[in-house]
């Protein structure tokens, strides 16, 4: 489909893009920068409910000469992205560290990142994949170093940039190999490599290199080193965003690439991903135990969670694929929720150390209870969202007969429970040190309430969400 024809199927993205540009202009004219934030939320919600021109029950549409594919899968991730972003903006509005002079452009950057993320889900062309991944990465670097006065943030942004560039370079090299072998940048044509046996080895190497770039995005071990530093030093709402959105879209892209381009050698990448999955969850969980900073703890936890989600990718069966999507939804609610509490606590204690959570149950019973719910959900305790995600990926491992993977995940879950309960223990079992009152600003409280409801909803009425995922996958 040519560009002009494509435009009318591209309206939600254009809406978001224009919203981002308008917010940049708005920043010049309004004195109260919070308004830009609220405007951003409206734009995002608007994008989420933007009517789709075509009926997607039929064939997926190839937009812009096949650069993008518009299908239910894209729509699912578009909605997920903008909702995650809306929550991020909402929890940023009352974030203390953000200085008013910079706040306006911050929201613009978030909106632009959203545009890039949606493109990641839609790309089916290697060039476009690279561009969208880079777009998101660049935005992430800027957002990480957004607090210009913080040396830690600058260092983290630099580290992120260096790691990211290296990973992108390696991914690009992999892409060039694929291009050399297949003569095309289209994933659907790359699939035909299966017919030409001589290129088998090249394809495999290319795919592995490809996985380096994607692994970086989803913080898969051994490409996870950047994550704890970046999550710790980035502004907390950005950290919340980075642990959820780029990861979710990284998985979206990874599944698209694997299913469209490389499903024919799945017997090669499946064991590889299995090993990486076990490695990722183990590294994440074991390192998380020793953490004394809540953001670092959540960083390692998010690495471990990536390991669980990889289970679904590695099995790639009828429970694994929807499992990844469900897990991402559950994880988005839960992790954003946990970070919301972190923001609210740090707003008053000015600290992200675990010790500042001591006795939180007394100071702020609602916050403590909420964080407990999120921690339990991350630990996979029913009837919360995290359990449904875990249930799915465990199912996929059992269904595929990957007993090693299943047992490794089971042991890991027990290890993980230990450090999640470390936080719970501090809040409830340890007496408080600083009896500070914690304020409940409206946007944060609203976000917290919604995320809490989401965490319970996925756990108690999973069928609604499963149905949405099934629509996205045409099953």
């Amino acid at each position, binding site marked *: 489909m040519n560009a002009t024809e494509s435009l009318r199927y591209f309206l939600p993205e254009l809406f978001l893009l224009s919203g981002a540009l308008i917010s940049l202009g708005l920043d010049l004219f309004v004195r109260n920068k919070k308004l830009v934030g609220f405007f951003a939320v409206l734009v995002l919600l608007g994008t989420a409910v933007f009517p789709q021109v075509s009926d997607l029950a039929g064939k997926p549409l190839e937009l812009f000469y096949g650069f993008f594919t518009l299908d239910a899968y894209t729509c699912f991730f578009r909605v997920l992205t903008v909702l995650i972003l809306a929550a991020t903006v909402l929890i940023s509005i009352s974030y203390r560290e953000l200085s008013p002079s910079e706040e306006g452009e911050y929201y613009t950057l978030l909106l632009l990142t959203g545009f890039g993320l949606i493109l990641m889900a839609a790309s089916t062309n290697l060039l476009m994949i690279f561009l969208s991944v880079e777009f998101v990465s660049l935005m992430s670097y800027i957002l990480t170093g957004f607090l210009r006065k913080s040396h830690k943030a600058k260092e983290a942004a630099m580290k992120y940039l260096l790691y990211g560039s290296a990973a992108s370079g390696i991914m690009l090299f992999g892409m060039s190999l694929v291009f050399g072998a297949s003569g095309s940048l289209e994933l659907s044509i790359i699939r035909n490599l299966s017919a030409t046996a001589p290129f088998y080895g090249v394809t495999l190497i290319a795919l592995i290199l490809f996985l380096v770039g994607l692994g970086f995005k989803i913080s898969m071990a051994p490409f996870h080193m950047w994550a704890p530093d970046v999550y710790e030093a980035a502004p907390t709402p950005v950290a919340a965003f980075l642990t959820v959105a780029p990861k979710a879209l990284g998985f979206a892209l990874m599944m698209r690439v694997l299913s469209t381009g490389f499903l024919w050698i799945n017997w090669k990448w499946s064991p590889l991903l299995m090993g990486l999955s076990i490695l990722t969850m183990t590294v994440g969980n074991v390192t998380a135990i020793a953490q004394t900073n809540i953001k670092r703890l959540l960083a390692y936890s998010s690495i471990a969670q990536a390991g669980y989600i990889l289970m679904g990718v590695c099995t790639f069966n009828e429970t694994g694929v929807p499992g990844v999507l469900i897990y991402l939804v559950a994880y988005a609610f839960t992790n954003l929720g946990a970070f919301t509490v972190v923001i609210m606590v740090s707003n008053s204690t000015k600290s992200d150390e675990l010790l500042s959570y001591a006795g939180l149950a007394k100071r702020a019973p609602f916050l403590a209870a909420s964080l407990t719910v999120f921690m339990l959900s991350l630990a996979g*305790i029913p009837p919360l969202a995290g359990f449904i995600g875990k*249930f799915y990926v465990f199912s996929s491992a*059992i269904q595929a007969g990957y007993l090693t993977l299943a047992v490794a995940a*089971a042991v890991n879950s027990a290890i993980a429970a230990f450090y999640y309960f470390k936080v719970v*223990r501090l809040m*409830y079992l340890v007496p408080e040190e600083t009896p500070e009152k914690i304020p409940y600003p409206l946007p944060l409280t609203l976000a917290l309430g919604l995320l809490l409801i989401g965490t319970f909803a996925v756990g108690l009425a999973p*069928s609604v969400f*499963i149905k949405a995922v099934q629509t996205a996958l045409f099953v």
Partner: protein
Amino acid sequence: MQTHLLSWITFTPLAGALLVLLLPKNNSRLIKSVATAATLLTGALTVKALTLFNAAEPGFQMIEKAVWIPQFNVHYYLGTDGISFPMVFLTALISILACIGSFGIKTREKEYYFLYLLLETGMMGTFLALDLFLFYIFWEVVLVPMYFLIGIWGGPRREYAAIKFFLYTLTGSMFMLLGILALYFKSEPHTFDWVRLANAGFDPGFQKIVFLALFLGFAVKVPCFPFHTWLPDAHVEAPTPISVILAGVLLKMGTYGFMRFSYPFLPDAAEWFRPALAILAVIGIVYGGFVAFAQSDFKKMVAYSSVSHMGFVLLGLAAFTSDGFNGALLQMFNHGTITAGLFLLVGVLYDRAHTRDMGAFGGLSAVTPVYAGILIFFSLASLGLPGMSGFISEFMTLLGSYTYSKLFTGLACIGIILAAAYLLTMIRKVLLGPVNDKWKGLTDINLRELITLVPLMAFILWIGVYPKVILSYMASSVQVLLASVGGVS
């Protein structure tokens, strides 16, 4: 209401818990009354269910079934039979008594009763769920409040005990989840439905693997040697009413799991694992007995005696005879009432003396005669004096296992002798001998404490004299279970 009776039984405590959350934090009277009312109401509903329960019917009764997650064929499926109903009844009873026993808790009452009632919902659901998915959820729901109840209101080493309990059980239940998933994917069409899985007929090799996975989950809970090490810590550190719940109900969840799921789904594996189960049972009985004998801490002694007594349940389960199974189920009920009583009595003493070191006491029978009488009553029940319920069930399990293995039966009898030894030693140390001046001013048991103990004594005597009162409820369902594993009646 009749049609949804089991749901009411399960969720009345939860409703009570949510109500407690809405109450003002400082009105401790109101909080206690609401909590007690919730447990009493649950008890009343259970009695109502008892009147509707048809003892002659071997299958499930009062069934409630509704689709919950259609994509995974998960149902909200509750039902009860002669195996689960005694446990439900026990849960309701112990919950009421332990709730009254909780009035001594003076800190953070709102949180306490909220968690307590949440725990009751979890326990009821565990015993009533007939869908494995649902069962797993209730099973896990029990864990979280328990962690807090031990961790916040427990003794000096409460944090360690709480997390140890949690991690042990969670690790076990993770493997149980894998086992459940394996059952699901092996069945055609995929299902978590108890009735379908019981009729699925899996191949023996598969059965063994799944049995092992489920075993890990259940054995930790029982606790079966060598997975018992969380128990002394948790029991000792937990506040009295929570020890009562732990010993009275939670341990039974493990053995109930064997009877409800492992045996009917995996009969070949159960047969294959029989010797292992019997050996672990005997080790538990004897080892638990010896360790209990060596304790100077009153509560720790009772805790280890639980390991020993729960061994009889496992021995009965390994017997594959009608006597063995009935005895095992009855022992679950009896151990629940007797050990709950003992823990309450330890609590009574500890509340007054603030020590549990048996060596520090002496001659209490002169100071607190009523307390002494009741303690002797429960001790005798626990060591298996004929005429009391403990005797009936231990005798039945031994009778059942005799046909299976004379050796194991003989070894298990050591446990009974040991029980007599450690319980009588305890009585000697605490109640007899010269009066220790330090305890001259000790007050005798009060009315509230009596209220928590007397119902238990009534059941112990009643079952001891006329066991048919409860056996008649169990018999037909146990017979079906026995037939499904191919045991001799």
